[in-house]
């Protein structure tokens, strides 16, 4: 299919997400407003009030209930969407595991925000990085355009009958959620066609009958009941298997979408920028990648071999792709916008350094904790990181593997 004509709208990140969910023909939205996600819920409730969608909008009393409503709706075969941030995601923690364990393909926008205390409404990745083990696919976007594109792709990925994994799409609070951007949008009918209708895998039920995997009184099944030491382990292994096939499906859907929209974000898993001949590179997730790209352009124009690896999909971790992308880089700085107190660096650093341990050539890998609670990530900080990496190459040693950047001493 050829690239279609699109309409440019001025949207902030939250509005882009709400618009994508609207076009994706969602059956159920259950959500509870929380800064900086509020605009998503507001916009979507306006669509409902105006009769622009036939979505069942459930006003719940908490995020725990919001996700429970979405999980159960998805279990009946509905398309379900929710959105949250920070403390809201933390309150969902229990149900995140129930959702993935029930193989309910819920799509959720997480507008990344710091966790209390002290209370802070601005961006960092503490809220979703801590949920990396809960069995959800995690995609982090760089800008509002990508937020729009990723929400549409997310439904098609999550609902793939081979996969049935819930997805959270992370977008940086305020930096993206509240910042107006030109967003190219696809026609309604095309998005509806792209996402399609849910297809159901078949399972054997308790009566020995082959039935679709959904809660339906006509073809009863029991989903997610008691499971002790006899079968729990096997069911967890099945979830891990779905994660292992997820990269293939994420790439496929990303490519299929690129064909109609003309937009690609690397291969859908990683988004490398000038890495082919880079000697030093930054690895990061989210909107900071945009700032890093600007600095890469600047340094490249001066002949410096610098690059960036933006990790778009954090779960499942694209191990092979990361290894390949960084195979010739000599020094890598991983930027983490969250902190594992008492650990040796942040979540992204753990993964990158861990993956590179098995690589034939070990580059130097250092970690920078930055931007907690919305602290500005000034271009000077990125310059400093590239200078530090250069110094590591010159001296052939790492002084401090884990550092804070943008912090006052």
């Amino acid at each position, binding site marked *: 299919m050829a690239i279609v004509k699109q309409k440019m709208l001025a949207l902030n990140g939250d509005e882009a997400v709400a618009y994508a969910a609207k076009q994706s023909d969602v059956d159920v939205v259950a959500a509870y407003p929380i800064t900086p996600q509020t605009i998503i819920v507001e916009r979507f409730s306006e669509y409902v009030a105006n009769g622009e969608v036939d979505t069942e909008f459930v006003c719940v009393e908490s995020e725990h209930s919001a996700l429970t409503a979405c999980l159960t709706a998805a279990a009946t075969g509905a398309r379900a969407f929710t959105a949250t941030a920070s403390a809201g995601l933390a309150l969902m923690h229990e149900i995140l595991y129930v959702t993935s*364990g029930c193989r309910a393909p819920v799509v959720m926008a997480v507008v990344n925000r710091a966790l209390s205390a002290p209370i802070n409404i601005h961006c960092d990745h503490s809220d979703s990085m801590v949920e990396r083990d809960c069995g959800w696919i995690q995609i982090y976007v760089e800008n509002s355009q990508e937020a729009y594109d990723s929400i549409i792709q997310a439904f098609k990925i999550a609902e793939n009958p081979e996969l*049935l994994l819930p997805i959270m799409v992370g977008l940086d609070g305020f930096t993206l959620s509240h910042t107006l951007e030109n967003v190219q949008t696809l026609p309604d009918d095309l998005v509806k066609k792209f996402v399609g209708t849910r297809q159901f895998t078949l399972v*054997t*039920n308790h009566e020995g009958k082959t039935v679709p*995997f959904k809660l339906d009184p006509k073809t009863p*099944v029991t989903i*997610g009941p008691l499971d002790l030491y006899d079968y729990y382990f096997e*069911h967890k292994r*099945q979830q891990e298997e779905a994660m292992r096939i997820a990269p293939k499906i994420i790439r496929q859907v990303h490519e299929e979408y690129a064909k109609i929209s003309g937009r690609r974000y690397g291969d859908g898993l990683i988004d490398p920028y000038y890495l082919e001949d880079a000697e030093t590179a930054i690895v990061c997730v989210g909107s900071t990648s945009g700032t890093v790209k600007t600095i890469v352009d600047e340094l490249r124009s001066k002949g410096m071999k610098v690059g960036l690896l933006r990790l778009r999909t954090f779960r499942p971790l694209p191990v092979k792709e990361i290894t390949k992308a960084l195979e010739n880089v000599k020094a890598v700085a991983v930027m983490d916008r969250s902190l594992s107190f008492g650990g040796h660096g942040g979540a992204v650093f753990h993964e990158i350094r861990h993956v590179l341990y098995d690589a034939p050539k070990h580059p130097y890998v250092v970690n920078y904790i930055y931007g907690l609670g919305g602290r500005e990530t000034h271009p000077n900080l990125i310059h400093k990181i590239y200078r530090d990496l250069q110094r590591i190459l010159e001296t052939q040693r790492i002084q401090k593997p884990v550092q804070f950047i943008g912090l006052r001493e």
Partner: protein
Amino acid sequence: MTTQEKGWKEIPMAGVCWKPSTQYLTGDWKTYKPIRDLEKCTRCVLCVLLCPDGAIHWKPEKEDIEFDYNFCKGCGICANECPVDAIEMKLEEET
């Protein structure tokens, strides 16, 4: 765990049950067993209605009730609720 149990590739996902729960005999969880005094029992069927496991049945052909010990977990609700104290909970090994 026996070797007959299935591997992760063979079972349906998300804990979908592939056999009915009636094949899972929960009666072996019990410590105390309800024993009925046939003289005292008035066949009011209150115990049938209140049993949380549906383990007490009304048998119309016998005009009497019957305990299904395969599913009775020995909770004692029947004994507690019986209006004529016709049910006594006894240690299973003593019955």
